[in-house]
Structures are given as C-alpha cells and as structure tokens.
C-alpha cells in the first residue's frame, strides 16, 4: 500500500525526468548512429561508424585533451583558492563583512558578460593587463594573450577561476560552519598549532563538502563552452577548442547532426564515468566517517 502511494507521488517527477533527460539522451544516441545532414536531405543509418571515426578523429582527440587540461588545472585551483578564501571569511578580521558581500560578485555576473570583460582585459592594444605588466616592468612588449598559442588556454583558465572560486568559497565556508568550536578549543589546550589544527581537524571534516564542490566544478569544467566561445572561439589553431565547442560547431555551424550527436554522447560517457568515480569516493569517505 505504502509503496503504491509512494509510486503515485513519485510519478510526476519520474515522468519529468523521462521527458527532459532520458528521451533526449536516447534520441541523441539514435542520431549518433546515423549519418544525418538534414540540410541536404541525408538521413541514413550507419551503425557504429560515427563512433569508430570518433576514435581516430584527431580534432576530437585534441578537444578531449584540451578539455581535460582545462579541468585538471582549473578545478584544483578553484578548490584551493576557495578553501583559502573560506578560511579568511571565517576569521574575525576587520573588513570581514565586506569580503563576504563582495566575494560573490564574479559568480553573480552572467558568464557571457564576464567573458566580454576579460576579452577587454586581455586586449593586446588597450587591455589593462598588458598595461599593468608593462608599467611594472615585467614585460617590455605587449602579449597577445588570446591569440598566442602558449597563453590562450591559461588566459581562459584564469577567467574561469576568477568566476567560479566564489562558488567554491561559499560552499566550503558553509561546511566550515558545521565544525564544532569545541574541537578547536580542546586541540588548542593539547598544544596543537594552527597548521596541525587545519590538517587534523578542518581538512578531514570539511573534505566531503570539498568533494561535492569538486563534482560540481568538474562537471561544469568538462562541458565548458561559453568562456571559450566568447574569448577565442576555439582558436588560435584550434588549441582552445573544447569538446562542447566542437560539438556545437558540428551541430549548428555545419549541421552534421549525426556526427555531432556522436561527439555529444562521447562527452556524456566521459562525464558520467568521472562523476561516478567521484560518487564512489564520496560514498567511501562517508562510510569511513560513519
């Protein structure tokens, strides 16, 4: 009886998930098995050939590599900076309130807007970054941050870290609040210094939260699109083209629905694998705690 009622109440939610998640996913998979270019009236079933081509498509490999590089550098940076800022927010220092108020601004600005802003900061002729670096004598000639193959990805990573560190900081700060003050008091009495207190009390207790923030950020980073699209469009020489940007170009600029869907499905699989690894970790961690 109870089970029936449960099902009844769950039905709308299940229906919604089917409609907005499972159906598009399944349809994407079907499209991925076809060669479909609606513009030219091509629509034929080609089996796994899209996925086989994907395995040896150098452009896909490069975009995968770029995405991984982006994720592996930006997420740890965001988490550690977020941790630092969260610790700062917890300390009762002057200006603390102001810090809490202003820290969220980057996160509150729509990404496209902040990307445009960074575009101007990086501008080789008028940008403030080149101006400051030249003024302080660090560089003598303007650097074209977004047009230089050695700098473009780093420039995007910096813009992303700027934007999403507040998100990490806020969640970690919330996690810090849950640690009872008595733990610190007794550790102090036992003569533990601030480093010991951080590594033996704060870090282990806040770790599950950090892990959750990590999941969120990793998934976001793996499907990074807007910043890249606005700042470089994938250039120079395609070295900043991420998987989402590649899929977008296939789907909406050259209208290859079949192959574009195959790329999206591959992206989905990669993100799913990584997030299940995270969830496994999280699960283990909580069991250890319990």
């Amino acid at each position, binding site marked *: 009886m109870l089970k029936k009622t449960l099902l009844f109440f769950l039905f709308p939610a299940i229906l919604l998930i089917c409609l907005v998640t499972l159906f598009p996913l399944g349809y994407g998979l079907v499209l991925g098995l076809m060669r479909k270019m609606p513009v030219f009236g*091509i629509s034929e079933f080609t089996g796994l050939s899209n996925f086989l081509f994907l395995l040896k498509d150098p452009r896909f490999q490069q975009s995968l590599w770029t995405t991984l590089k982006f994720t592996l550098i930006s997420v740890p940076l965001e988490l550690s900076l977020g941790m630092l800022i969260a610790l700062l927010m917890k300390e009762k220092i002057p200006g603390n309130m102001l810090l809490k108020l202003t820290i969220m601004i980057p996160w509150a600005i729509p990404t496209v807007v902040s990307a445009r802003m960074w575009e101007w900061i990086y501008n080789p002729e008028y940008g403030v970054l080149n101006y400051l670096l030249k003024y302080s004598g660090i560089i003598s000639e303007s650097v074209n941050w977004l047009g230089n193959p050695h700098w473009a990805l780093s420039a995007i990573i910096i813009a992303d870290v700027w934007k999403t560190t507040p998100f990490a900081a806020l969640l970690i700060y919330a996690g810090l609040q849950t640690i009872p003050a008595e733990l610190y008091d007794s550790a102090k009495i036992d003569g533990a210094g601030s480093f010991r207190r951080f590594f033996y009390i704060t870090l282990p207790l806040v770790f599950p939260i950090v892990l959750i923030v990590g999941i969120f950020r990793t998934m976001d980073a793996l499907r990074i699109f807007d910043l890249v699209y606005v700042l470089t469009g994938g250039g*120079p020489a395609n070295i900043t083209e991420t998987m989402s940007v590649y899929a977008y170009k296939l789907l909406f600029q050259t209208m290859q629905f079949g192959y574009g869907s195959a790329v999206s499905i591959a992206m989905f699989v990669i993100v799913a694998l990584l997030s299940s690894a995270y969830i496994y970790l999280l699960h283990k961690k909580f069991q250890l705690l319990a």
Partner: protein
Amino acid sequence: MKIRKKIEVFAFRLIFVILLLGLSLQQSCDNYSGQKRKVQKDSTIVFKHFKLANAREQFQKAIAEFEKENPGVHVREEILPSNTNVQHQFYVTSLESGSADFDVFLIDVIWTPEFSLAGWLEDLSDLLPEEERKQFFPAPLKADMYKGKLFAVPWYIDAGVLYYRKDLLTKYGFSAPQTFEQVVRQAQTILKGEKRADLNGFLWQGKQYEGMICTVNEIISGFGGHILDDSNRVRLEDIEVINALKWLKSCIYDWRISPRWVLSADEENTRLSFLNGKTIFLRNWPYCWSFFQREDSPVKGKVGVTRIPSLPGKTGRSTLGGWQLAVNRFSSKKELAKKFVKFMSSSKMQLRFALTVGTKPTRRPLYQNVELRTAQPFIVSLLPVLENTNPRPVTPFYPQISQILQIEFSAVLSDIRPIKKALRSARLQIEHVLKLEKEISAISDDK
C-alpha cells in the same frame, strides 16, 4: 506545527497561481500566433534582414514606396543581429523546419549554393532577363547561380581593399604600394623612421574565423594561386599558396610589420587601431572609409585606398563579399515576394542606398551615374576592384571547408604547424568533403 501548515498552504497556493499564470500565458501566445496567421493570409510580406549600419530610415522609406506602388500590400521588416554566424544559424534552423514566417530575406554571398542545394530558395531566373543580367558584376551573379538557375539577386557587393596613411607615405616619399615587396619595404622604413612603439605596420584579420579566410584568400590570389580551381580540384599544395602563407607569416615573425595580435584580430579591432592613427597599412572592407572620414576621426583626410597588393605582373583579386536578396521557397506569397525583390534590386533603389547608406551597387552602369560620382566618389573609385573579385570556394559545402581552412591556416600563422603539413591535412579533409558533395548532387539530380 501551525506555522508549518501555513507554509504548506501558502506553497500550494503559490503553485496554483503559477500554473494559472502559465496557462493564461500559453493562451495569449496562442492568440498572438492566431492573429499573426490571420495577418499573413492577406497581403503582408515579411522582409528579414540584418541590422545594416545607418540604413534604418532608408529601409522604411523604401518599404513605404513599395506599399504605395502596390496598394493593399504591406511589408513588415524583421531585423536580425549583424553577426553572420548567428544569421546563418537562424536561417538554417528555421528553413530546415520549412518555416514560412518570412518571405524575402538577405543572404551572404557564401550561403547561396548551400541554400539552393537544400531547396530553400525560390528560382528567380525569370526575374532577371538575360539582357539585364549583363548589367551586374559577373562574380556575385555567378555565385548566385546554381545548376544554371538564378536563386538570389545580388543586392550589394563588397570587396577587400588596402587602406594606407597618405601623410606618412608622402613624408617618406612613397606612393601607394602595388606589390607585396613594396608593402614590406614601406612599412619597415616608416616604422624605423617614426620610432613610435605603438605604431603598427600592416594590419589584417588573422583570428580563427571567416574574416581570416577572406584575408588569406586575397593574398593567395595575389601570388596567383587558388584554394579550389574551376573544376573544384583542391589546389592548396601549389607553390603559390605556400608562398602566400610564408609571406603572411614573415610579416609577423621576420619583418615584424604585423604585430602578433593580428592572430586575434577581426575587422573591428583593426579598424579601431587604424582610426586612432596607430597603423600604416590596413586590409579591411570598404565600410571603414566613412568612419575614417568623419569629423571627429583622428585620421580624417590622411587616408588613401588602393587595391590588394600582389606579385609584380599579377593583379591581386579582392575577396568577394556582399549580400543577396532571396525568396523563401516555403513562402505562401511568392509572387509578391518576387515583386519586392525586383523593386529592392532595381537601379533606382540600389542608387538610393548607395547615396545614403554607402552600399556598393551590383549593377555596373550605376557607377557612371553623375549623382553617385559627385556624392560618393569613393564608391565609384572602387569600380576596378569590384570588377575583378575573387570568390571564396563556391560550393554548398563551403561552411565545412571554411572550418577546415580556419583551423589549418590559424595553425600555420600561429607558427605551431609547418606550412606543408597543414596544407596537406587541409587538402585531404576538403577532398573528403567534396566527395560527399558529388554523392549528394548525384542523388538530387536523380530526384
């Protein structure tokens, strides 16, 4: 407990209100589209075009005149953003679903083959009799033909030009450069003499996007090469193409007349740099001219224009640009739509837009018009450039080809891939795409 209950009641009410709101919104949307359908039934045609600078008033005037000539007919304008990629995406998605929401629309010269093959454009062959076609510049007209039929009417034409600083060139005793070698030598001499750290020698569009293809296409033609030849064979590995890319690269890395930031430069930021007096030579489209000649322009009266440089003995052919009027094949009012295309592309309208907005007419006799000669001498002076333009590859698969070229050219110019390797890879990818084209046009011929 009581409070909780209150909150629950409140939440339910809120959901109820939201649902109601949603329903009524839905209803009013239905009403709106119902109205739209009704209006569409009578003689209203929708003209979709992008936001052309300074043209707002002229479009309205032209429409008012058309409505006066055809009593009972209404034309509604719908304006798209000027970003071409956004427009392309809009047209492809709505035409793909057979949308009849617009009747007449403006398309970029590189889209006509793609849209014609897809069967989205109405055949306009009978709109322009053979005799009248002779008036038009041949290049855009050819780009608007597909399998012997005319699918769009060229409305205005564009072509790349080289702007130069007349005052600086005169100061060092130079005249406008004709060859690649002159551009390099003049830029180097002036840069050396002026000793200004913020002065750029030669600016062009080198970001990974369509504009870069336009620049490279011109330089290749100045060296006498082609991306595709007349029988659609890929000619990227010819020595002319290799030399063209070598020359552009040397501008950045050897002679240092182009700053490194050309690798992320588009039309607008190069125009701004030139406008602010920081550039000697600039490759750009003719639209920049009016900006350079404004009252508050720092370079007013100091700018000269010449054709794209080339090797001695060769003529550089500028990349063909421009916009075409086309009729949506799914439109229910094709006859009216055709009438409007005929009206807008008439000599009279083209002349009026040339005089007021500065668009370059596609009908050649207009360049002899006295009124245009006195009011817009700059446009008239472009005639030799416009007579001899170089289209980007004319094929329905141009968007794919452009993407391949953008990546490979960008890799060459940023110095991370050797020229020959990049060109070979581009050739193989493009040949793959063209093979598909053959298959498809064979299928569509069968139909």
